[in-house]
Structures are given as C-alpha cells and as structure tokens.
C-alpha cells in the first residue's frame, strides 16, 4: 500500500465512521482517533515530499557537475574546471545536509526511496571527480567522511575548524553500501564517455588506464553477483557494454593507432561506437 492510498483510505474511513450505526460517544472517539491518524499520515507524507524535492535538486546539480567534468579533456585550464565542479558538489553537500536535518530522529529507511536517486547521482559525480583527480576509486568511507554537518545555535554553517561551542549539533548522513554500489555502476557509463572523448582529443594514455580500471570494477560487480539489490543486475549488463566499448577503443588504438592521424581518430571511434550500438551486446 503506497502512501497516497493510505491517505485516501484514512479519509474514506472518517466518512465511513460517521455513517456507522453506533452510539454517539464511541462514534466521536473513533472520529477523533482517525483525525490523529490523518495528521500522522499527512506529516509523514509532507516530509517524504520535501525529501523528494531535495533529491531532485541534488540530481540536477550532480548531473551538471558531471557534464562540466567531461569538458576537462578539451579545455587547457583543467584545474579551473575541477574547482568549479568541486564548488557545485559543495552545494550538493549542503542539500544533503538538509536531508540529514529532515531525517533527524527518524528511521532513515522509512524515507529511503525519496532520496535514493539523488544520492546515487551524487556518488556518481563525486567518484567521477575523484577518478579524474586521483585515477582511483573513491571509497564509501571517504564519501561519508565529507557528509558531516555542524549545526550550531547561531546557525553557523559547517566548516569551523575549532572545537564546536556547547550548543553545536553534529549531523551525519551515511550513504548506504547499496546506494554507493549503484552510483559506481552509473559512474562506469561516464568513464566510458570520458574514454571516447579523450581519444578524440588525441589522449592515448587515458583509454588504457580506463580500460584497466573498468575491468577491475566489472570484476568487483561480478563478485557481488546476485547478493546486491536487483538493480545491480540490470546495470551489470550496461557495464559490460561500456567495458566492451572501452576495450574496443584500446584495441583500435593499439593496432591501428599508428596509421591514423590524431585528428581523424575521433571519426574512427564515432563510426565504431555507432556500429557497436546496433549489434547485440557481447558478454
């Protein structure tokens, strides 16, 4: 029974209770009880909706950060792009702080479906940025370490390095391993695009690094197999396709690369990737 049905049913119950043929006193007690239910359900639903809104904002901003990061290969000022992306993700972290505030005192799993899309998108963005900078996979611990929020009495935003005043409250948001896994699965799609993009720019080192990295991630997902949430199995299929494209790019570079002038490499890959899309994915 989803939340909307629950609310509709509680209102219908109020009317049903009024129609029921009972003595006057029990009837008003029943109506009073249902009023309480209605309030509970409404406030729960409102919180859920607020979280959905925040999650949507997080998704949008994270996607913008990812688009920005793809430009890092074309642009001479890579550090500028990285800093701008970092700035966007700082904004996202503040939004996550809002989620943490809403969830204070609540069971996080009750509202998990509301914010999981946004969190997965954030994991995708932050791990993308981390890979570009460090050529490694950001760990779940590292992600969660940056999701600590200080909330002092004078609403001083997080970032104070000194010991918090006695009125300070510390809020944390913990990304679950499942959300981390799904975010990383989506990351592989972006890495594949990064690979094709970097080849087009004449970068012939990145594809090989990416190929190895993606192979490791793919092996990790294979190890997990069915133990994870069911969405992982769907994403595994896409992951294999991405891995295939990247390895194909490396193969072409290795075998044909010396023959093809750099400025034509991009065209070669465009035609190859469209060819691959039309045939069945090879496992």
């Amino acid at each position, binding site marked *: 029974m989803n939340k909307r049905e629950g609310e509709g*049913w509680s209102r219908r*119950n109020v009317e049903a209770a009024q129609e029921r043929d009972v003595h006057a006193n*029990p009837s008003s007690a*029943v109506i009073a009880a249902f009023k309480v239910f209605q309030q509970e359900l409404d406030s*729960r639903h409102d919180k859920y909706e607020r979280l959905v809104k925040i999650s949507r904002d997080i998704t949008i901003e994270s996607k913008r950060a990812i688009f920005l990061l793809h430009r890092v290969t074309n642009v001479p000022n890579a550090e500028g792009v990285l800093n701008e992306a970092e700035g966007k993700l700082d904004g996202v972290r503040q939004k996550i702080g809002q989620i943490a505030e809403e969830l204070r005192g609540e*069971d996080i*799993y009750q509202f998990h479906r509301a914010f999981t899309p946004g969190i997965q998108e954030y994991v995708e963005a932050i791990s993308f940025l981390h890979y570009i900078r460090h050529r490694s996979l950001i760990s779940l611990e590292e992600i969660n370490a940056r999701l600590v929020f200080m909330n002092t009495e004078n609403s001083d935003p997080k970032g104070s390095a000194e010991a918090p005043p006695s009125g300070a409250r510390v809020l944390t948001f913990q990304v679950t391993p499942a959300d981390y896994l799904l975010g990383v699965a989506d990351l592989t799609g972006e890495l594949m695009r990064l690979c094709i993009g970097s080849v087009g720019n004449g970068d012939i080192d990145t594809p090989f690094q990416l190929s190895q990295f993606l192979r490791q991630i793919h*092996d*990790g997902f294979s190890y*997990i197999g069915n133990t994870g949430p069911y969405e992982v199995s769907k994403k595994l299929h896409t992951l294999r396709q991405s891995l295939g494209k990247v390895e194909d790019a490396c193969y072409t570079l290795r075998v044909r690369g010396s023959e093809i002038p750099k400025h034509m490499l991009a065209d070669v890959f465009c035609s190859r990737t469209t060819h691959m899309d039309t045939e069945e994915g090879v496992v």
Partner: protein
Amino acid sequence: MSVTEMFSYIQGFLSADQDVREDIRKVVQNLEQTAREILTLLQSVHQPSGFKEIPSKCAKARELFSNVRTQMAELKTKFPVEQYYRFHEHWRFVLQRLAFLAAFVVYLENETLVTREEVAQILGIEVVREKGFHLDVEDFLAGVLIMASEL
C-alpha cells in the same frame, strides 16, 4: 583502498544483510501460519451454525494470539530495533492480517472499533516507533479496512 578491497567490503555487508533477511523470513513464516489458523477459526462465524459459537471462538482466538506474541518477541530479536523500516516489507503483509484479525475479534466481542493501542497489546508490540517494534499507522488502517470488507 583498492577497487577489489572496496567490493570485498561491500560484499561482506550485503551477505550479512541477506542472512538477517533469511532469519526474518523464517519467523514471518511461523507468524503467517498462526494467522492462517486464527483466520480459519474466525471465518466460521459467517456460517449460520458458527454464529452462536462466537464467544467461544473469540476465546480460542485469544489463545492463538498468545502464540503470536511469542513469535513477535522472537522476530524482534532478529534485527537491530532502529532498522525497523529497512526490513519492514518482510512482515508488512502478515502484520496487516494480524491487525485485521485482532480488530475482528474485538468487534465480535463487543461491536466496537478496536484502537491502535489494543491491537498492539494483543500482538505484543508497541504503537510508537521510538519504543520499539511498532504497528505502523498504515498497517493498522489496512487491517481495519480488511475487516470492513469482512463485515
């Protein structure tokens, strides 16, 4: 942390999660069995012969509910109390059934609508989330609705 180490860690987490869910499923199966017994007992009131035996059936149902309380106590031990909603889907259906059965018994006994607190008492659980394993408002209302159609 390398990629392999990260996935190893996650795999550990996920398989521990699966083990907990297995344990929960086993207890929920027992609860479902008891619920079926109570349902069979109470459904006989729809027949003309059963109608006169309502008080004895209610008494018998109450006895069966003590089994429910025992099984609920066992269910509570299977997972950390603050993760109620993480595993909620496993017992939602049977809890709604049990809420309906409790409401039905109370109605057969004195023709009133049971309160959330009464149902919680019959099932051996709490009403308020902070106090422990509780009866969610939506599940209580769903149970009441099932009873409405039964009536």
